[in-house]
């Protein structure tokens, strides 16, 4: 009996040793997760600040270190994610978290590389989100895109210069409420600026720039009661022509900025003064315009709801990508989810969105935290944006684009060719001694349509 006890004791001690010898080092090392996001681009990134705050608090407690390895845009992330998922040579390694639209997930060869958030969020936790936002992130019955911030399209105006223009020509801000009015104003602006340098002909300046003509035509057609898409292509119904004509008239006369790049760039150089872009682009609008002679001017940027067609519904694009979590190890997945849960807590969510020009994603954030946060906004630029946001919410319906596999390729093609055809139209118009406006517009639409239907 005594022998047995001793053996027992020995065994117990040995087991204890084995138990203690597992690596304590692992516990000391934080789980590092990498993130590719789009909130901030090359300017200051409020999300990076929030990530720092997370790392210093919850991250430290739970030994999680979130590292931002890329801040770019959804299109770049789309390309990189697809390259990585397809294992293309030179492709980067996928991060733990990346920001994308469902279109990126749909283009993946195998979407099981992404975490289904229903595995980590309880029904109750998910019900805290606005249901439409969660619904948007479901691809093939799996919730793979978690909403963290939503945006819409907003009209930004360089009020300083617009006021000057308004005084000289009588065009008012209200004229910009409809697309027709906006393009008429653009034509007037082109004449007005051209007339300022009588010795240089054809140097009209553009008033307007749109970030996404694809969205303009899409929401325009739908608001006029027509389908924009037809199968894998575009419908080109009468509503498309309704949207094309005023745009083309203004563009051919030089009132619309047709160079590539984001709308913010031409506002920064004073090459245009009104833009329609994602509300999130607020971060990139500078309060200063710099002219070619290196003089600069302080300006005021204000926001108004997106224009609509005179005979159309008040419809506006709802945008805003979400976070995808890449399958890895349970610890890393848990770390990523811990971060996402922290980021979507109403308090942090509202802090995050109001610094980046987005809307929060949970009911509680909308109802309890957002109104207070808007009241406390110090920057008039942001206050104006959120007023425009509230106006939009009060009187507009939100349009969510369909999940189409050809969506991205259609978008890219349309963006390139609309700009190219309108630029060529502008050139034709100048070459023809500023005559034949209607004909040029119709011809260019015909060419554009042929290219898109090819």
């Amino acid at each position: 009996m005594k022998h047995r006890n001793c053996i027992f004791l020995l065994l117990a001690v040995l087991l204890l040793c084995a138990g203690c010898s597992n690596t304590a080092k692992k516990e000391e090392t934080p789980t590092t997760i990498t993130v590719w996001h789009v909130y901030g681009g090359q300017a200051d990134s409020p999300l990076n600040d929030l990530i720092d705050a997370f790392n210093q608090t919850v991250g430290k407690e739970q030994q999680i270190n979130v590292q931002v390895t890329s801040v770019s845009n959804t299109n770049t992330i789309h390309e990189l994610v697809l390259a990585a998922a397809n294992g293309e040579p030179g492709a980067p390694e996928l991060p733990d978290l990346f920001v994308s639209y469902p279109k990126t997930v749909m283009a993946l060869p195998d979407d099981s590389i992404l975490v289904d958030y229903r595995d980590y969020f309880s029904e109750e936790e998910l019900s805290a989100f606005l249901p439409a936002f969660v619904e948007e992130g479901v691809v093939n019955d799996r919730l793979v895109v978690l909403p963290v911030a939503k945006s819409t399209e907003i009209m930004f105006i360089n009020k300083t210069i617009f006021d000057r223009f308004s005084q000289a020509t009588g065009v008012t801000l209200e004229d910009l409420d409809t697309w027709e009015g906006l393009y008429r104003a653009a034509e007037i602006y082109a004449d007005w600026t051209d007339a300022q340098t009588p010795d240089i002909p054809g140097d009209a300046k553009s008033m307007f720039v749109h970030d996404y003509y694809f969205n303009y035509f899409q929401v325009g057609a739908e608001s006029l009661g027509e389908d924009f898409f037809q199968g894998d292509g575009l419908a080109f119904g009468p509503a498309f022509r309704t949207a094309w004509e005023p745009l083309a008239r203004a563009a051919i006369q030089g009132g619309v900025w047709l160079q590539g790049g984001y709308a913010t760039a031409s506002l920064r150089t004073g090459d245009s003064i009104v833009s329609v872009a994602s509300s999130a682009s607020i971060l990139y609008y500078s309060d200063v315009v710099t002219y070619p002679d290196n003089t600069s001017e302080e300006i005021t940027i204000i926001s108004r709801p997106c224009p609509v067609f005179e005979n159309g519904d008040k419809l506006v694009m709802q945008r805003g990508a979400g976070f995808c979590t890449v399958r890895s190890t349970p610890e890393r997945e848990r770390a990523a989810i811990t971060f996402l849960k922290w980021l979507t807590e109403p308090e942090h969510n509202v802090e995050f969105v109001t610094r980046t020009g987005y809307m929060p994603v949970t009911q509680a954030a909308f109802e309890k935290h957002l109104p207070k946060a808007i009241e406390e906004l110090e920057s008039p630029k942001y206050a104006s944006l959120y007023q425009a946001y509230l106006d939009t919410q009060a009187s507009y319906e939100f349009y969510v684009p369909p999940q189409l596999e050809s969506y991205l390729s259609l978008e890219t093609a349309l963006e390139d060719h609309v700009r190219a055809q309108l630029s060529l139209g502008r050139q034709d118009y100048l070459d023809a001694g500023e005559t034949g406006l209607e004909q040029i517009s119709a011809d260019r639409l015909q060419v554009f349509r042929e290219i898109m239907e090819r």
Partner: protein
Amino acid sequence: MLNKLKEIRALNAFVKKQSVGMQRKLMLYWVSMILVVFAAVILLLSIAGVFSQSDERLQEVMELHLKNTQDNLVAHLDRLTAQSLNLSKELSREIEATLIQDGISLQQVNDDPERLLKLQQIMYPLINATLQAADCNGVYVILDATTNTALAGADHSRSGIHLRYSNLSASSPVTPTVVYFRGIPDIARQKDLELHNRWNLEFDTDQIPGCRELMDATLDRPAQRYFWSRRIDLKDTWESAMLLCVPIVGSDGTVYGVCGVEISALYFQLSYPAADGQFGSAVTVLAPLQDSRLLLSEGLVGSVSGTYLDGQETLVIHQGRYYNEYDTGTERYIGLHQIMPISRGEAEDTAWAAAILIPQDSYAAYTADIQKAWVMAALVLLLVLLAFSFFLARSFVRPITDSLKRFQQDELPEQSLSSGISEVDELAEFLNARARNQRLEQGELPPNIAELFDQFVVRKDLLTESERNILRYYIDGHEIAEIPDLAFISMSTVRKHNRSIYEKLGVASRDELMLYIDLLRRCGRLQELF
């Protein structure tokens, strides 16, 4: 103190007087011996340096790692410097050719946006080519001229081009997007480049310490003086970067401007991943060294995964035997650093160091692991030895205790029973013998003799009355010849009775009978025959 000593001595004396079990005593000896041997082994191991082995190994690993890191860094920065010097020469040639062609000096380019645009258009391909070829995330050129000298900040506003990559990622150098950070926007539009969100037409030379002085210098050739700026925040962006400043030297020695490459904090972080080894995550650092402090906020830090570094710390250095300690105030790191010259001819003499840092916590956890293993092994060894000594002492003492038990239960066999230990057997025999003698001395019969007597006495009950009479005559000392007269019987009858008596009492002769009677008399048991 003295009192205490006395008390202890008293206690010791008391313990000595106390009778201690043999097994316990034996075990005590064993344990003392084991402890002495154990202590000696530990001493020998520590003298042999077994316990400080991990420090030495860490030093070896870190020295090797530092050497590799430094070699990489030197090679990287050398290559960038060479490429920048080459860019400087080509830019100088192009700028000079344009100025000569137009018959003007660089001063005359001031306030002339057209000429500046022309110069930038000439410079752009060279800058772009350098960006494509060099291991960096940005290339820039600053001309010592400005678009508008009438402006307030004109003395520190300088025209130039700065191209940067915007979408850096750890493993994708293939498809970076070039953005236009500084420069005349017409070029960006011609080349279909995106303007940086915080684009500006010109550089603010106040943002780059040392840049102005370099442009004001007169030099023979660019390699005479160049430097890496400390890490500066790129205005209005979340990024910060170090710029290599190489002068663009004209044939007459005037400096046309400054050009070079940019390494941003992010680019460095992606280029120098943390090496996750057994001691923890090793982070690469390139930072200025000042008053035994490593200024991370002014240098570059590689990937910090596995640590809590954020690249803004000032590390106080404590030199150590095997490695140095770097203290941020809240966190401690261990590592090594080595001075490396990266600039030349600079007025302000900044010492730059390449360093590798490992969080002290993770190294402590590693050594704690080893220590724990040692302690556990020692504990197990001790326990095993103690158990062994217990068994040994018990099996040694068992024959003695068993024998003792038998003594106590009076089970001593007449014949000695072997216990397996000769001393114990001897002791048992000795005790047996002594007990026997003692009984004899007390007049006790040996038991077998007593048994003979007892049988004899019992048998006498078989005798008839007349045989008993004759026996009595013998007991009284009469001879056979006297019996016929005394008993009034014939001699033949006497003989007949004699035979019967011998038979019944189990004796063979009268002599034997008389011996019994004599012995019984001596033992005082004679009356039992009556």
